[in-house]
């Protein structure tokens, strides 16, 4: 069993794919298996890129899965994972890249934190223009990440990091299930929330992941799903929040309610993953969200007590008994 499976979904972007594969091949940590999932694209193009890539001095191993029809991104990820076995896995988008130390550092971090379910490294966001088969960087910025953004409360308001930055334990899939294939986008966010409910995400601040974003001047075929499908992202986010609103509350907190509250806080104070970055204190936002929820719960209790005085008295008596009991 290899130590880590790298699942790379691709669709008709051979130049970017070639770069992404090279970024995996250059890793100092060599016990990996790369599973390319050609998501319904022309097989010949992917095969040609891979033939060339395999001519580089090999480390790890590479397999290609050609899907005859295009499926959702998450379904493609699940196919890649189902066809492999490893202790850890990572979803490497075909337009992103890593520093050569990414896997080495991530695996070391997971080994030294046996209770953690994932590790996320710091991210550099690179804006690049892709035209006529040539890609060139325009600018870069530090992607804002902190330990707070990797907690449940930090993540519930919106997606806080791109897949390229995270390595997961494969055992998570048994615990929380695989990616939700019904989601056309934001499947990573939805999965991350389930994952972080199951265990801690370790944060390595060193910026070892590179999240490449095409500028508006780029050829449309090269665009990021997030920048060319902003409306879709908004729609899916609302659908997810609707779904969560219907779920039972856990410890008195409804996931959908929490997400909406956190998202509104975030929207007013923090740009999302698909907008230019401004540094914000996500831990402050998360704490503030918790305070709001606490206050809302308190005000609901007070309102209930006013409407039903008997309930209020019983609640006070219960609280006194609990206190005495302690």
């Amino acid at each position, binding site marked *: 069993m290899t130590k880590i499976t790298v699942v790379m979904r691709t669709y008709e972007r*051979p*130049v*970017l794919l*070639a*770069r992404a*594969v*090279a*970024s995996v091949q*250059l890793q100092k940590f060599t016990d990996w298996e790369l599973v390319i999932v050609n998501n319904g694209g022309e097989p010949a193009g992917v095969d*040609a*890129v891979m033939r*060339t*890539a*395999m*001519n*580089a*001095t*090999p480390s790890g191993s590479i397999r290609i899965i050609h899907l005859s029809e295009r499926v959702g991104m998450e379904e493609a990820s699940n196919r890649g994972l189902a066809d492999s076995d490893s202790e850890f896995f990572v979803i490497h988008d075909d337009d992103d*890249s*890593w*520093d*050569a130390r990414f896997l080495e*550092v991530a695996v070391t971090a997971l080994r030294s934190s046996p209770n953690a379910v994932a590790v996320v490294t710091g991210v*550099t966001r*690179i804006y690049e223009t892709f035209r006529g*088969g*040539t*890609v*060139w*960087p325009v*600018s*870069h910025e530090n992607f804002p990440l902190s330990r707070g953004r990797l907690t449940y409360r930090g993540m519930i308001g919106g997606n806080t990091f791109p897949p390229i930055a995270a390595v997961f334990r494969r055992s998570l899939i048994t615990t929380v299930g695989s990616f939700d294939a019904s989601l056309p986008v934001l499947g990573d966010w939805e999965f991350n929330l389930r994952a972080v409910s199951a265990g801690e995400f370790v944060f*390595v601040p*060193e910026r070892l992941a*590179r999240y490449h974003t095409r500028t508006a001047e780029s050829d449309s075929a090269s665009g990021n799903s997030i920048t060319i499908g902003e409306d879709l992202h908004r729609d899916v986010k609302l659908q997810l929040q609707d779904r969560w609103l219907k779920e039972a509350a856990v410890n008195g907190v409804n996931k959908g309610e929490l997400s909406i509250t956190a998202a509104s806080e975030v929207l007013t104070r923090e740009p999302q993953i698909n907008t230019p970055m401004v540094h914000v204190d996500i831990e402050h936002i998360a704490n503030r969200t918790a305070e709001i929820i606490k206050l809302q719960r308190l005000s609901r209790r007070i309102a209930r007590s006013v409407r039903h005085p008997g309930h209020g008295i019983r609640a006070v008596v219960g609280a006194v008994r609990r206190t005495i009991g302690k």
Partner: protein
Amino acid sequence: MTVQLSAEQVLDEHPQASVLSIDFFDTLITRSVAQPTHVFAVMERDLIAARGDFWRGFAVARVEAEQRARHNAASKNEYRDVTFDEIGLQLAIGLALNLPDRDMVMALERETELMLVEAVPFGAAITQVARSRGMKVVIVSDNYMPAAHLTQMAHRAGYSWMTETDIFVSCEHGGMKHNGILWPVVLSALNVPAGSVLHVGDDARADGEVPTSLGIATYVRDTMRTSHRDMINTTPTVLPLSRIEAQYRNAMDDTHWDVAEVVGGGLVAMIVAAQVIDAHFVVGHRSVAGVHFAARDGYLAHQVWNTLRSRGWELPEATYTAFSRSVVWRACLSELTRDNVGRFVGDDEVLTVSRLERRVGCALDSQLDRDAPIDASTARDIVLENTELVLSACKSLRARLLKYLQSHEVLMAGHHIVVDLGWTGSTIADLADMVASESGDLAVLEGRLTGLYWDATPQRMRIAMHGFAMDEFGSTDDNVRLLGVIKLLEALVTAPHGSVVDYEEDGTPVFVETAPELRAYEAVMHQVGDAAVRGALAILDGTHPSGITAADITNESVWAAIMQMGHSPRADEIELLSQVNHVTSIDHEGDGRPLIAMAPDDPSKVTLEDLPGIYDTLMHRHWMQGSLRALASNADSRWIADEVNKLHTMTSLRWVK
């Protein structure tokens, strides 16, 4: 050439002196690294190894902590020096260290200083001669380390006679040599007149001007400073080059600082060693049909490879294969259009018909005087009017090139590696296409390159490539920095012959010799190349006097070496390379462009609107940082370099993140 005085000669020139006062750091003792801050790089390396990644970036934090401590000390009392404890406090603040960790790193710094210290030969000689003549010898130093620690360092360096009372260090006396306060303290403690003291040190002001003004005889000897660079670029990856340069500094202390030897034996030797190490790695890990060192960038490595084979290393035979951007492009040319004719004639070129004929490889039908100057537009029209002739010439060039490749077994079935410098990989990708096409996909090329920058990405669809020191996955800033040093590296890693422009019918390559390149080779590059081959061989067979071995030649250390010289050059390196021109035209004729860009005739007439164009020119056509430093060294043009630095912050000397 400056010939240094011997210890006896210095003392003989000052017979009145009964006391020898000597500076401590870089006069009496030095360290086995190129500059004082590199001690912190050694510490960072050891801290990471022992305690993990938290300590990454320690060395820069240590440099910055000292700067802050000095600033704070000066704001309270402009005369006194900073203390080691004050630096420790700032370090603790900067890195958020707890008390035990702060004490641990301060103890480690003292231990590391003791581990790296060595005597400066001149310092050892002059103190020995002075003592033998009955002179009192004392140390006068501007430093933050207490006398007790300096005594330990002196003992470790072999000065066993030294005691704490022989040492006057600024941090213990409320004043410095530099501002003159320390000197009266010394004279008073020794109870001698200024005229009976001879002071020897390495700082023109602190060890020269100031004591001289007080009546003390002085001798300034700054040879130990020759290897210093910008101090902020302090990180463990600089240590291999640092140790090599330190070894040169010590070896050349009594003679003169031979810049060409140091550049060749330092940066270039590391690159050449890396080329060989990388090729060796590939042949050790997969079946390889051929190893081909590209002319001219693989010339030095090919020599080293062959020498190692002759010494019994188990290496396959490797070819030295001549191809160039221009011949490969022409050999692949199948149609000529307005869009691609520009590759024959640059936008700003002035040619003649006869020179144009040499470029396209055939006689051209034209009514113009064959030796009359013609502009680029006219030249392109002539080429297009002769499309059939030109394409025919390209076709026959392709046949000759293939014959040559056949003779070098590049078309033989199997996996071949081509060792070259880099940078976009487009020429090797073109060659790979041709080889694949001619061999029926049986022969496959892989590019093993020193560096690749962002433009290499599309080539990855055509050829497998590896950039040893750098690839397009580096930061945007590093990609641009690489672009700024490409011309430098191509000038340094070269061969005694010119670039290939054609092949004889039997496949023999035709090299074009240009006067500027020949001049540069005679004046500088042959010595650089000789030193590089010697240095690389010593590194690879484990006999390098610095102790650097193949294990030290890593991707990161080679990148650091490239950045140390290419991005934070010393003035002597810029001066040495100011005599080099880079010939880049497709026919490799003409005078080319100087590696160090000429300053504008009248810098005062340059406007702010001109700056983006100047930056672009420096970046693409010259050695960017060498040119900027040259501009900065002249009072009239300094403002241009300053403005470029402001507009493009990655052009600052700092390259360590």
